[in-house]
């Protein structure tokens, strides 16, 4: 049994890779019961309690490396905020996270666009696919003439809303949401509406419902961490004279009544490092605003003291936390897709630990120690 204790680490790597990849490929086949832990509920409920027009500061303090864990979380929280009509101020402390944060905010905002789509319903996926292929081969003008005869509806993916006609055949589904959120001009999309119902969508027009500078903004990044937070507590305009695109923050309509951190209604910090703690120490403790933290799973235990002391309303920890948040707002996102792979990895580590202990005891403890 000694071989059990001397397995080359590369074999373990292969087993891990196989487990994660296969679990990811089979992600649509597994469904987990929805369970939201108290810390995640803490963040969700605090945002749920806010009223229309309240201001949420989203500090997206992570870079691409930890994006797999924090990106789904950020999108879920932003979707929650925008769907409740809250105003969102985005920022980051990480220079390497500017592009990522802006991308997340912009893409989530786009989900809330009113998209006018022409659609046709099919009962077979094959036919719908064929239709898409046919449409793709058409010229722009011909495509326009073709879909002009189709029924049309205005769909808002973020607000889960369909307007159009007296009785639109287009029914709400997550497939529709996904398709509308990612649809582009001149590129037909396929959306699964339900059992044996498929829709081919063509975008006709797109109208943003959230306005930059009024409903959301992205301040960008400034160095200084704790000092920056103190400066923001004194004056937001002094800390960020201009936003990421160079617009004056003083002139920005949504910031007229948000002069300092004391004026925000909630802060959500999504951090892969200890920025969350910095926000507690320099921000919420000094300027008294409620806040919640989302973090990578490894950091989450660090934050329990703040949670227990009531300094933060909740913690969203890692992919599982993001999955719980997605479940709470009822919009599955990439965390829901990632959870099976994560589950597989956890179970595999448990099996490996058990296996090595079996080997350890079967080989005789003394000899194993000597080896």
């Amino acid at each position, binding site marked *: 049994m000694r071989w059990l204790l001397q397995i080359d680490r590369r074999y373990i790597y292969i087993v891990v890779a196989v487990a994660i990849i296969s679990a990811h490929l089979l992600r649509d086949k597994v469904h987990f019961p929805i369970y939201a832990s108290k810390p995640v509920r803490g963040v969700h409920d605090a945002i749920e309690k806010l009223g229309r027009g309240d201001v949420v500061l989203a500090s997206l303090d992570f870079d691409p490396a930890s994006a797999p864990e924090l990106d789904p979380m950020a999108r879920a929280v932003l979707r929650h905020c925008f769907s409740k009509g809250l105003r969102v101020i985005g920022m980051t402390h990480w220079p390497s996270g500017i592009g990522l944060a802006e991308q997340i905010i*912009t893409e989530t905002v786009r989900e809330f666009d009113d998209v006018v789509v022409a659609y046709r319903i099919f009962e077979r996926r094959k036919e719908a696919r064929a239709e898409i292929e046919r449409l793709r081969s058409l010229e722009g003008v011909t495509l326009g003439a073709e879909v002009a005869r189709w029924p049309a509806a205005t769909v808002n993916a973020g607000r889960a809303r369909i307007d159009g006609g007296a009785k639109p055949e287009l029914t709400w589904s997550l497939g529709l949401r996904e398709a509308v959120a990612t649809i582009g001009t001149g590129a037909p999309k396929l959306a699964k509406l339900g059992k044996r119902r498929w829709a081919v969508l063509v975008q006709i027009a797109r109208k943003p419902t959230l*306005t930059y500078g009024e409903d959301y903004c992205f301040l960008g990044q400034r160095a200084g961490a704790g000092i920056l937070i103190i400066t923001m507590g004194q004056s937001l305009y002094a800390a960020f004279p201009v936003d990421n695109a160079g*617009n004056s923050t003083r002139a920005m309509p949504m910031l007229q009544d948000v002069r300092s951190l004391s004026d925000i209604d909630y802060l959500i910090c999504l951090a892969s490092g200890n920025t969350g703690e910095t926000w507690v120490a320099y921000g919420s403790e000094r300027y008294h605003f409620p806040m919640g933290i989302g973090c990578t799973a490894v950091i989450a235990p660090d934050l329990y003291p703040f949670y227990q002391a009531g300094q933060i309303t909740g913690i969203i920890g890692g992919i599982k936390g993001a999955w719980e948040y997605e479940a709470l707002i009822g919009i599955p996102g990439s965390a829901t897709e990632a959870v099976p792979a994560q589950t597989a990895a*956890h179970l595999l580590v448990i099996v490996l630990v058990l296996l*090595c202990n079996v080997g350890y005891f079967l080989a005789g403890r003394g000899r194993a120690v000597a080896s």
Partner: protein
Amino acid sequence: MLLKRTIPVAIAFVVGLWFAIQYYVPTSFSERSLTWASNWAKILLGFAYILGLYSLVHVHWQKIRRGQPGYGYSLLVYVGLVGTLVLGLSGEVQTLVDIATGKAHHFADFQAYSTHDKPIPNFSSGFDWVYNYVFYPASATMFSILAFFIASAAYRTFRARTIEAAFLLIAAIIVMFGRVPIAAAVHRAIPDVADWIMANPNMAVKRAILIGISLGTIATSLRIIFGIERAYLGGD
């Protein structure tokens, strides 16, 4: 000696003492001194980056010059450095040209977004391409290696050698299992037990470590303020 020891120690003493007291003084002068010091720190950091860049460039240049094994990687450092710099600057230059020729709005113009026509940023500039398709996947790859390393490290070291280790092992398995959604399906109590372990025994130990760390930090700060610890000035 005066420049290398006495003056730095004096600065450390005065500034250290002031900022220890500053925390308790709420006047606007006190707040401003903090802002002032942080601005100085930022300026110093800016200059230090030049030193850092010099170190990076010099070390790798030496490797290339001497043809040391693995000097190809050093060449890659130069390619990455110069390439990203050129792409970043060219994007800025293009924007300035567009503004000058009236092709683009100046973003600093308030009207640009008050008229609701702020274009959605497209991630198509060269710099963005490097960020999205080189930096992003490379960083994510490094991070994801953790999954493999954790499995291998756990396999090699997590053995119930003693009673204490056995307790740790059981706790670890409960927490690991409680952290996946399937646990709630097996039994509703498992995630709660995992949370309890994290919030109580785990927290108690962490707080103890944290108190020790805080005391160590205070003692180190005092040693520096009073000039007893001078290793940061380069030895004693």
